[in-house]
């Protein structure tokens, strides 16, 4: 019987539990390491996929209502201008806008830029002005308003390496001569995750670079003021023009929310091997205490310890080990993803791109998920440590000590 206040009593029990954990040091350190690694791996994957999904979702409401593409022979082709008045005639359509965009592959840098054509004067007005770091515009840019561009931070840094940060020469071997473009600004770093690989060109210049014939566009976007009508109008566009394909904003949001879910589940399922190995380790612990541990419980009982005190000792042992390791696992995962920016894991998402974003993500920590991690790690571990101890503690000490 341990005397003193409840607090003093628990302190003594914790002292004993820690001594007992330290006595079986090698085994417990092994469990601690595996426990931390497992919680760390699962949390990291959930943190990174959660953050990326959030990064996409926060701006998804500002996407166009319907994107219209033309599919010919199973491939996406340019949309001729004659579709525009026909779509505008559909009741409920507010406006049809044309887009000129595509990709430009730079062999020497092995980089794939996204080229987007728009009227750059728009960006110089009002609120839009604030998203660009404007540079001192050289005089020749004034003369050549069609050959100006604003680039993303990633593109800018890449062009700096080849001393083309002021003006860039677009060139393809099939062209007679290169097309020079003046860089009049870069997009601010806040928009980096959207703008990193982007070159926004004046529409006419973009047409030249993308070799888009006049009166043709890369795709169309349709604005529908009433959100209830979007699906219906998309259906009408597909019915009237079977070669057109529509992608509504809701569909894009759907792909956003599911894109990482499926593969993160795949990664987690490949972690199953590790989880099983850990389960076997716990099973080993749970399937019975070692004779030594049983003898220890027997001796404690014989010298007058109550069953509930022995159970408290085992409870604290389990709680300290599993609590510390899950807490450390979660905290390490946070530091790894948001402070170190996920080295190793981020390469899976970046792949073979040459233009890297800095990967500074918005933290996405779901309290529900933290609770789940703690529940599935701490509670079963407590159960498998306390239950065998209870079984040993209710047995006759004499029988345990003599190992019958």
């Amino acid at each position, binding site marked *: 019987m341990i005397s003193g206040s409840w607090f003093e009593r628990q302190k003594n029990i914790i002292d004993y539990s820690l001594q007992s954990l330290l006595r079986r040091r090698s085994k417990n350190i092994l469990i601690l390491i595996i426990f931390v690694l497992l919680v760390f791996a699962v949390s990291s994957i959930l943190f990174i996929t959660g953050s990326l999904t959030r990064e996409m979702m926060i*701006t998804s409401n500002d996407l166009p209502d319907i*994107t219209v593409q033309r599919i010919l022979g199973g*491939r996406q082709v340019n949309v001729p201008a004659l579709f525009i008045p026909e779509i505008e005639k559909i009741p409920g359509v507010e406006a049809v806008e044309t887009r000129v965009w595509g990709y430009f592959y730079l062999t020497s840098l092995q980089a794939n830029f996204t080229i987007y054509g728009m009227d750059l004067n728009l960006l110089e007005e009002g609120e839009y002005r604030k998203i660009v770091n404007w540079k001192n515009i050289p005089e020749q840019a004034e003369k050549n308003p069609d050959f100006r561009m604003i680039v993303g931070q990633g593109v800018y840094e890449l062009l700096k390496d080849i001393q083309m940060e002021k003006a860039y020469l677009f060139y393809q071997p099939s062209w007679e001569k290169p097309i020079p473009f003046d860089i009049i600004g870069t997009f601010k770093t*806040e928009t980096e995750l*959207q703008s990193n690989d982007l070159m926004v060109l004046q529409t006419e210049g973009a047409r030249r670079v993308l070799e888009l014939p006049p009166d043709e566009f890369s795709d169309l976007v349709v604005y529908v003021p009433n959100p209830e009508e979007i699906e219906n109008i998309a259906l009408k566009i597909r019915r009237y023009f079977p070669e057109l394909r529509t992608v509504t904003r809701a569909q894009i949001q*759907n792909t*956003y929310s599911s894109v990482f879910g499926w593969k993160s589940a795949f990664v987690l399922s490949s972690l199953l091997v590790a989880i099983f190995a850990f389960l076997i380790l716990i099973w080993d612990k749970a399937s019975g205490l070692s004779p030594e541990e049983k003898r220890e419980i027997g001796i404690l009982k014989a010298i007058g310890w109550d069953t509930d005190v022995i159970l408290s000792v085992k409870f604290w042992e389990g709680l300290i080990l599993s609590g510390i390791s899950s807490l450390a696992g979660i905290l390490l995962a946070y530091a790894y993803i*948001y402070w170190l920016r996920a080295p190793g894991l981020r390469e899976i998402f970046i*792949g073979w791109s040459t233009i890297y974003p800095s990967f500074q993500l918005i933290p996405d920590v779901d309290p529900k998920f933290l609770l789940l991690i703690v529940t599935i790690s701490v509670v079963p571990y407590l159960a498998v440590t306390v239950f065998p101890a209870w079984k040993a503690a209710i047995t006759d000490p004499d029988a345990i000590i003599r190992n019958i």
Partner: protein
Amino acid sequence: MRYSSWLAIVMVVFCLWSGLEYRDFHKQLLQTEQELKSRRQFQKAVGLPNLAITSAARYLRHYSITDLTTPFQDYPASLDHFPAGFAFVPPDYSNMPSSIVFGKLEM
């Protein structure tokens, strides 16, 4: 020193560590709040979807609006040709007029 005192020290360290990360979490969220406006403006100005995380292939860069056959243009099931393809799911084609049939054509 008693063992329980050591444990208390460890717990205090963990609490400080958690506090540090919690403060960072809040700081980041506040910062995002401020950045959000310019990101929305950007999204309005340039209507292209998806994040510029990977530019390895066009179906990975703009996979929400990629066309039907692009991911398979090199050879069937070539989706995971690029390492980043591992992290992206094929887009939803449920809005296509008819379902795609693989295999032999039934005459």
